[in-house]
């Protein structure tokens, strides 16, 4: 025991300073406790919310796209099961080896192989990556059987859009395809997440595009617990969403298929419509493309072939093809003439040509028709009669009548891409070309040539308005959306005199049903089913004086591009009209030779099936519970 004075001072200092350090420790612990109080009590709610945000992820569930059905409920665009195979990288020791074995069952090309590896590298290792889609049942079964050998491969069944009739409805239905960057830019904010879902498809053309929103439905959502790497631990809650609504079209599957078959091989278009309701029964544009391929992704070579084809398979000719209406326009001129005071019995002498100043306008019949009245002029499609009448009533009267009958305008049709065509007037010419209107231009407008342009849809509407007694019917493609019937609009009258309409109707009757009419050979002979029509042959090239002298070349002797367009418009049955139709065959030769027989066949099919018959309305369209035919 030798605590001397010095050691005691050392001890006192030590004690003092140790107490000080203990005080520091105490203060430090109070600071820690205070911080814990701040974080765990004061700010607890905020951090609890942040923890929930961390933990819970909302996954959107893509809704099932609504069906598009024909007027009888037969599915034109639906969904089918898509057998596919995915790979989960973390479940295989060797991705390459698994892919090698898989490709023995389903071939995987070089390009695809690279993409799979890229996708695997991009996503977490527990995320399934698509290896192959659209497997056949045999392939899918084989993948399933060999699953033990294919470590990491996950057979899976998804839903994909299906167009059972492919090309036949391509231009009406359009197609769905992957969402592009541009689609994303244009989409509203609330849709962004849905559109970004892998594999999501949106309507790009046709009805699929027009009614995309209605067909799409409401996305469901699933709240899942995820860990820090995004792996789903469990599902907390699920909202299945709402499947897309059904869209019932006015089309008749059978008529459409028949018309498609009849036009196959041509570059052509046909439109059939109900003259009262405007229901479009058939809308065909040939050739077409396969919408299923757009859905699954067209090969670049195939797509290039579509783009470069001279027959324009990507173009909906029914709406966007503009043709000189040719002689099918003569009804309009005839009605304009009657309304302008020309007596239908008034005769014009046709020597085969018509002179205006020092220019000769030729009639299609070299020797001429002799003296013809309106009825005969329509029946024989005499050009000189209409040259003469057109010059007398003037272009303004003709243009006015053309407008009334639906030319030179669009109808707000449910498929986009509609063209307005052209009904020329002196004002139009001055405004667009800065030139004066020449009388010669009125003369050729009399036979539907010159500046005049019309689409097949417009020609069908024109014919429907003649047939229904002068009511401004407009075409419609949709009967019901999501179970809601769309009302049929009562078309307003056109204020065209009975006399004028009769003259046009009688002329068309004569064309088809009187011996010597230009389409008499393509008549429907069955009593009660007769049609009334009008041929049109629209000249594409200019016939030189030299050629006319040496004899006009026959269409078969010149190249396809130079041949005349063949047109035919008609309605039926002649005494109690219900359907109107237009057929345009590009470079088909002559209206009577090429277009009329096709139109006759289609019309006979329409009349036999009579899709607009009252009993066809018995089923409530859009009712998902009722049975689906076909």
């Amino acid at each position: 025991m030798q605590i001397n004075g010095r050691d005691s001072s050392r001890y006192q200092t030590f004690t003092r300073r140790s107490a000080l350090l203990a005080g520091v420790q105490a203060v430090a612990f109070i600071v820690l406790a205070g911080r814990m109080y701040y974080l765990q009590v004061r700010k607890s709610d905020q951090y609890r919310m942040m923890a929930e945000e961390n933990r819970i992820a909302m996954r959107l569930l893509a809704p099932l796209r609504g069906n598009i059905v024909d007027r009888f409920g037969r599915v034109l665009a639906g969904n089918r099961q898509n057998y596919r195979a995915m790979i989960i990288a973390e479940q295989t020791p060797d991705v390459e080896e698994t892919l090698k074995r898989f490709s023995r069952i389903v071939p995987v090309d070089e390009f695809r192989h690279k993409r799979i590896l890229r996708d695997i590298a991009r996503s977490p290792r527990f995320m399934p990556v698509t290896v192959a889609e659209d497997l056949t049942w045999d392939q899918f079964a084989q993948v399933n059987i060999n699953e033990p050998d294919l470590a990491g491969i996950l057979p899976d069944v998804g839903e994909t859009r299906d167009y059972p009739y492919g090309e036949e409805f391509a231009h009406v239905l359009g197609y769905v395809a992957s969402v592009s960057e541009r689609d994303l830019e244009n989409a509203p904010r609330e849709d962004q997440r849905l559109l970004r879902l892998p594999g999501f498809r949106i309507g790009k053309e046709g009805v699929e595009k027009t009614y995309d929103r209605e067909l799409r439905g409401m996305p469901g959502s699933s709240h899942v617990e995820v860990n820090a790497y995004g792996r789903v631990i469990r599902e907390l809650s699920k909202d299945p969403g709402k499947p897309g609504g059904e869209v019932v079209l006015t089309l008749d599957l059978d008529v459409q298929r028949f018309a498609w078959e009849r036009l196959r091989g041509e570059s052509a278009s046909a439109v059939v419509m109900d003259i009262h309701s405007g229901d479009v029964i058939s809308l065909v544009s040939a050739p077409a493309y396969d919408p299923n391929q757009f859905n699954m992704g067209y090969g670049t070579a195939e797509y290039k072939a579509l783009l470069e084809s001279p027959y324009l398979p990507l173009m909906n000719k029914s709406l966007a093809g503009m043709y000189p209406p040719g002689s099918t326009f003569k009804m309009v001129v005839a009605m304009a003439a009657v309304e302008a005071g020309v007596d239908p019995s008034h005769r014009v002498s046709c020597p085969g040509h018509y002179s205006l100043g020092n220019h000769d306008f030729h009639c299609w019949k070299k020797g001429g028709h002799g003296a013809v009245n309106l009825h005969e002029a329509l029946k024989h499609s005499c050009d000189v009669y209409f040259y003469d009448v057109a010059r007398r009533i003037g272009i303004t009267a003709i243009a006015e009548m053309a407008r009334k009958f639906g030319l030179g305008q669009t109808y707000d049709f449910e498929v986009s891409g509609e063209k307005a065509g052209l009904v020329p007037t002196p004002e139009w010419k001055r405004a667009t070309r800065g030139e004066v209107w020449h009388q010669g231009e009125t003369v050729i407008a009399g036979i539907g040539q010159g500046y005049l342009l019309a689409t097949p849809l417009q020609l069908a509407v024109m014919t429907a308005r003649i047939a229904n007694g002068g009511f401004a019917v407009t075409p419609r493609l949709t009967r019901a959306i999501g179970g809601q019937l769309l009302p049929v609009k009562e078309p307003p009258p056109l204020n065209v005199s009975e006399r004028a309409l009769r003259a046009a109707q009688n002329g068309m009757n004569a064309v088809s049903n009187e011996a010597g009419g230009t389409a008499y050979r393509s008549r429907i002979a069955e009593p009660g089913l007769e049609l009334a029509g009008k041929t049109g042959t629209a000249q594409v090239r200019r016939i030189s004086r030299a050629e006319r002298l040496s004899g006009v070349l026959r269409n078969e002797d010149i190249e396809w591009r130079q041949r005349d367009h063949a047109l035919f418009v008609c309605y039926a049955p002649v005494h109690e009209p219900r359907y109107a139709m237009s057929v345009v065959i590009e470079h088909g030769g002559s209206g009577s030779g090429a277009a009329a027989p096709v139109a006759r066949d289609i019309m006979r099919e329409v009349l036999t099936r009579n899709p607009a018959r009252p009993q066809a309305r018995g089923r409530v369209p859009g009712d998902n519970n009722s049975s689906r035919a076909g």
Partner: protein
Amino acid sequence: MFDLRRFTGQEMRLTEKLAEFNWAFLLLLTLIASIGIAMLYSVAEGSFTPWAMRQAGRFAAGVCIMIVVSMVDLRLWMRLAYPLYAVALVMLVAVEIIGFVGMGAQRWLNLGFISIQPSEVMKVTLILALARYFHGLTLDEVSHLRNMIVPLILTVVPVGLVVLQPDLGTAILLLASGGVLFFVAGLRWRYFIIAGSGVLAAIPIIWSRLHDYQRNRVLTFLEPERDPLGTGYHLMQSKIALGSGGVFGKGFMEGTQSQLNFLPEKHTDFIFTMLGEELGLVGGLVLLTLYFVVLMFSLNVSLQCRNQFGRLLAMGISMIFFFYIFINAAMVMGLLPVVGVPLPLVSYGGTSMLSLMFAFGLLMSVHIHRHLEISRGPSAFW
């Protein structure tokens, strides 16, 4: 040569020593370690492997070490202070040369059968050496400049080596515990003021020499939102976990932040966060209270001791333990930058656990030999 009995049993018999051993203190440590093992069980989603079991084994080994170390006469420890320091220093140098790269820094020394972290060993041996040195100085002598050269070298050399590794957290810990020894040994206040100003002046220089990841940690600490996906992520997730725990926590093994891996390093540096998330403010305060009791016990041991070596040693160990707790807890709460300092007895880690239990053995040895009086002069020993 010396007589071994002088060191092992001259004044006290082994049974007497065992009777003096404070078993309540060991129980306290066991309680803290059990909390750690329970949390490691939770981290592994309710499994004793891979962490909880090994941690329990280490603690058991640590208890053995503690008891053995406490039985050894304090004068032998005093005698061994410099040699042990020398061994630790050699290991620190060795880790620089042959240490392998782990966690972006060379910290581990692989001895074949065991991997150890020399910097952890150095924390205890530095205190031993400094306590040994200051034991021989009177209060007046402590503040003589020539007497400061040796302890400064003893402190600065290992600090420098650890900075080279680079392990900023441990370096600061070493420096702080060295400073504490200077302080309680009685060095005049003005030296601390001078040293403090010196450190402040050196900050820009230190800053310029820091590694990028170290700078990032400091910057992120000052502004966690600066880099929410990178370094700031740890801090943010730690605060979310703690805060969302609330008063009573989400329940054992129910912590979403921890169980779903949003919380990083949750079995080592961020284990306190996990405790706070699953057991709440209450759980956190219980642990802090247990720690505080340990600190107060250590303070009492040092104040009761009648020899300067024992006092300094006990206080140094107490402060090192305190630094560990404070730096780790303050770090996970966002009060300090993220530095790799484990939570003592709770974080998973072998060397840290064993060197701590060794230190507590020394503390207990001080307690057992508190009545021992050791003369200042070196002649007392050799």
